[in-house]
């Protein structure tokens, strides 16, 4: 028995020497014949006769050669090579046709390569952390307080207990993001507000990362109280410290405390501390790591109650998430009785532990977008395949005669099918090569436009062997699929040999080919119509977003925020500082007006949520407090942002002088808490500490003096769920304060003058979020914009593919009814009648396809409702406009094809056979 390897070797060798072997075989046969003839000659025959006899006795030389080739085991290969040569010749012969087919494949395969690249980096690429499949995020959520499942925080005591008591976790890490001001030592402090991750030393072992320079934190550092140390993120090291290799050991100031730099993290390092867009943004902006330090209060009830840290665990090998979940629940329950009040609160508010695999967590948030994109690309791929098979079908019909002749002459049917498939595979492969190039270009473009930011993990296209293998597979299957689709009607007709009879028919009606092609066209129009409707809905939704009135003026507004630390400014000093800053900014030549508040609307972090209860409710015995947004403003903020005072009045100096506790509310709060009552003069209690929402203390009482218009606080497309209360900034001093400046010209023109004023007042005070309101607004709908760009591009591609497909059918139709039209016109049919008939045929196809498309859209699109803003997924305008648009395209195509068909000279048409 020969081993497989040697057989393969032999086979390879046979393949290599095929030509030589063929010549040798010919020669060997020739010699054999000659020797045989010689013998007959020796026996007395004439040389002519001897040769003839030898030949006769020898039998069929060719079939003997075939038998020998069979014994080589290479017949399949040689035929295959022949098929490839044949296919290649066919491709070169029909250049226009080939170009259309290949372009279609290029589009389809290129787009799918892009999608695979995205999927690859989101799901398959183990690129983030070495232990990725064992890393879990552990968070605690309260059903009653947070509607969102993805609330990803936990409390410090939970972290400590789990770290110390869990058997199933190899290690557990904690991290917490907070802002700090970094300054250089010396005369030029160059203050900058940055986010800092304070992390436990275990973070590095959980994630399995090593520093690029220096070292990471150790347990020893923490135990010895050596916690004034910091590690830089690579990008920040590059931008602030110019990639200085001697950075280790250098000292910097963080919030005016000395820290020593001990390390730099590698380039692609990031901490998966959150799972939504905000924390992804955080990650990019988190330049520092410092050690997390345990405080005494962490081991009290408060330490269990306050969810504000992220914890990441490393599972032991072969431990499932469910097992860990059970263990953690048990730990939580066994420690619960030590903190009875908090434990009882947890029970009452539906506390649950959430354990998620890191990557699953990241991907969940982009699921809808991914699904939409995948669906759209699937449709494009399907349309492409339909296109190609309908084109090839048209051509195969023209080649039927050739096929049937070859079958009649003895070619095997299998061989013919193989030949068609091989030919299609060549198209597929050429399309695949083009597709790879297109994919590379698309990825380049995409990474420049930021469209990929809708995915939290930035996809990277890696052209490795796996990628090539997948694309090759797709290319071949696209070829085979379209080839097979185009063969179906041939077999419905009874195969190649019967097809010759089909060809003899003169009428173009009633053929199975035509029905099949009509069905393909229907499917294609339906798909294209569907994509157009989806694009229309998104376009309308985007329009709605643009139209949304944020409730305040966004033009010529400059904003910048800063934080006065409690360690350096007491309340009075803060009031003086803010007043002075405001006075000096207002004196700048370009400034029209200046306001102060906590955070300007639409900026992240702008919402300080507190709870409130009205005096009326409190007196009736109600204790359920409502959440509301708390802002602190000065007297000129409403005017600066053109927020209208609808009832009552703005704050004034007497309020401050008399230390009245007064408050202004927005319309939403007025309507929800004082329906049918004049809110002016009513009192509400505000509560901002972390007491449970059902505390028995009312809080501080404020009297309502005015009602202002609603303002979009956080996100344009998410309607405000809460009302807002405004207090005066001097009465309730917020942690952060922001300058809101209305300028006469370009808002950024005041940036430098303001920095200079700050340098003069406090050179180590950092400004953050220095932006114009217009830019904040633009950022706010960038995701919708990107999504829209993607879908509109895909819709355009679908339309293009559909046009190619229709072109294919048109040429088929004309080719197949050439003779018929010619005869009818020759017999005196009116051109307009013939034209009308063709147009009617097209309208039939188009309306059928469009109806299918509408049905598909109505079934599928409601599933994507969450991507739509203020647009009904059954929006009649989008459906109507899309289908009318499509219908008119088909009408034009029909008219052109009808004109072309009837321009045929009957004589030429009849001779065309």
């Amino acid at each position: 028995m020969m081993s497989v390897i040697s057989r393969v070797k032999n086979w390879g060798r046979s393949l290599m020497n095929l030509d030589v072997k063929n010549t040798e075989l010919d020669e060997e046969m020739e010699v054999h014949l000659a020797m045989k003839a010689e013998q007959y000659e020796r026996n007395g025959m004439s040389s002519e006769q001897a040769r003839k006899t030898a030949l006769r006795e020898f039998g069929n030389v060719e079939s003997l050669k075939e038998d020998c080739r069979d014994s080589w085991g290479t017949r399949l290969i040689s035929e295959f090579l022949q098929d490839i040569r044949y296919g290649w010749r066919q491709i070169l012969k029909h250049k226009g046709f080939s170009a259309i087919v290949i372009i279609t494949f290029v589009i389809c395969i290129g787009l799918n390569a892009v999608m695979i690249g995205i999927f690859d980096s989101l799901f398959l690429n183990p690129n983030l952390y070495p232990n990725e499949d064992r890393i879990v995020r552990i968070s605690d959520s309260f059903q009653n307080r947070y509607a969102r499942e993805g609330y990803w925080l936990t409390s410090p005591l939970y972290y400590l207990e789990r770290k110390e008591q869990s058997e199933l976790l190899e290690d557990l890490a904690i991290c917490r993001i907070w802002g700090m001001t970094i300054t250089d030592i010396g005369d030029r402090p160059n203050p900058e507000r940055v986010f800092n991750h304070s992390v436990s030393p275990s973070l590095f072992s959980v994630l399995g990362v090593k520093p690029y320079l220096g070292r990471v934190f150790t347990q020893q550092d923490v135990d010895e109280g050596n916690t004034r140390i910091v590690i830089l993120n690579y990008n920040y090291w590059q931008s602030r410290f110019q990639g200085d290799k001697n950075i280790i050991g250098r000292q910097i100031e963080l919030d005016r405390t000395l820290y020593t730099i001990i390390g730099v993290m590698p380039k692609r390092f990031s901490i998966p501390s959150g799972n939504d867009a905000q924390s992804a943004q955080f990650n990019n902006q988190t330049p520092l790591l410092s050690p997390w330090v345990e405080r005494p209060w962490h081991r009290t009830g408060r330490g269990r109650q306050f969810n504000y840290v992220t914890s990441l665990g490393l599972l032991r090998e072969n431990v499932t998430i469910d097992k860990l979940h059970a263990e953690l629940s048990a730990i939580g329950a066994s420690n619960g009785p030590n903190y009875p009040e908090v434990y009882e609160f947890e029970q009452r508010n539906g506390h649950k532990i959430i354990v998620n695999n890191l990557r699953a967590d990241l991907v969940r948030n982009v699921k809808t977008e991914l699904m939409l994109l995948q669906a759209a690309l699937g449709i494009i791929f399907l349309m492409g395949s339909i296109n190609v098979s309908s084109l090839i079908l048209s051509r195969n019909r023209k080649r039927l005669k050739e096929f049937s002749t070859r079958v009649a002459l003895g070619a095997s049917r299998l061989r013919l099918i193989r030949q068609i498939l091989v030919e299609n595979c060549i198209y597929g492969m050429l399309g695949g090569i083009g597709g790879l190039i297109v994919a590379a270009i698309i990825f380049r473009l995409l990474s420049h436009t930021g469209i990929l930011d809708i995915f939290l993990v930035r996809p990277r296209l890696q052209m490795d062997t796996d990628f090539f293998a997948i694309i090759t597979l797709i290319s071949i299957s696209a070829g085979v699929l379209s080839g097979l689709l185009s063969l179906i009607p041939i077999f419905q007709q009874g195969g190649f040999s019967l097809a010759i009879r089909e060809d003899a028919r003169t009428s173009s009606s009633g053929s199975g080919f035509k029905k099949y092609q009509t069905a393909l066209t229907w499917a294609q129009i339906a798909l294209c119509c569907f994509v157009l409707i989806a694009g229309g809905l998104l376009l309308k939704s985007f329009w709605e977003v643009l139209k949304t009135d944020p409730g305040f003026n966004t033009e010529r507004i400059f904003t910048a925020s800063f934080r006065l630390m409690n360690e350096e400014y007491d309340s009075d000093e803060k009031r003086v500082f803010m007043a002075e800053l405001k006075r000096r900014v207002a004196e700048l030549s370009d400034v029209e007006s200046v306001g102060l508040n906590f955070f300007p609307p639409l900026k992240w972090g702008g919402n300080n949520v507190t709870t409130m209860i009205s005096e009326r409710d409190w007196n009736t015995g109600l204790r359920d407090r409502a959440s509301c947004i708390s802002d602190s403003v000065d007297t000129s903020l409403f005017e600066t942002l053109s927020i209208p005072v609808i009832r009552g009045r703005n704050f004034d100096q007497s309020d401050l002088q008399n230390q009245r506790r007064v408050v202004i509310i927005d319309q939403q709060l007025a309507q929800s808490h004082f329906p049918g009552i004049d809110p002016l003069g009513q009192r509400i209690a505000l509560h901002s500490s972390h007491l449970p929402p059902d505390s028995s203390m009312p809080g501080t009482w404020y009297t309502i003096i005015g009602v202002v218009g609603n303002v979009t606080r956080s996100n344009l497309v998410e309607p405000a769920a809460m009302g807002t209360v405004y207090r005066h900034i001097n009465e309730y001093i917020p942690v952060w304060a922001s300058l809101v400046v209305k300028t006469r010209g370009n808002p950024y023109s005041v940036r430098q003058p303001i920095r200079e004023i700050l340098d003069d007042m406090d050179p180590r005070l950092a400004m953050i979020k220095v932006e114009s309101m217009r830019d904040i607004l633009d950022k706010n709908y960038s995701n919708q914009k990107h999504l829209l760009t993607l879908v509109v591009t895909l819709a355009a591609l679908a339309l293009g593919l559909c046009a190619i497909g229709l072109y294919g059918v048109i040429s088929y139709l004309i080719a197949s009814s050439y003779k018929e039209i010619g005869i009818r016109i020759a017999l005196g049919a009116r051109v307009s009648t013939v034209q009308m008939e063709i147009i009617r045929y097209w309208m039939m196809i188009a309306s059928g396809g469009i109806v299918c498309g509408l049905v598909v859209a109505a079934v599928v699109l409601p599933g994507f409702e969450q991507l739509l803003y203020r647009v009904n997924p059954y929006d009649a305008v989008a459906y109507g406009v899309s289908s009318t648009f499509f219908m008119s395209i088909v009408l034009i195509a029909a008219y052109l094809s009808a004109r072309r068909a009837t321009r045929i000279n009957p004589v030429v048409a009849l001779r065309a056979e």
Partner: protein
Amino acid sequence: MAKTANDLLQGTLDLLVLRALRDEARHGWGIQQRINQFSQDTLSVNQGSLYPALIRLEKKGYIRSDWGTSDNGRRAKYYQLTPSGKRQMETETEIWRQFSAAINSILETI
């Protein structure tokens, strides 16, 4: 693996070919002549079976082929036994002897 009748016949032809090559290298025509001559023309090997058999044997490594010159100056392909071909020939011959002896004894007794 059970041998089919066809395998048996093929095996027989292979054995004859190996046998014909026992003493010297021969070309296709020579092998055909040699078998005819040995069997006193009772067995006539057809070239349609001979050449595929030669290719088969060569693939199995029992024989190898080289181009040489025949007695009357023609370029021809000569086949000769390889060492493993020689061993195979002896084994096959032994099997055939036992087999034919068995057949003979059956034919004589029954």
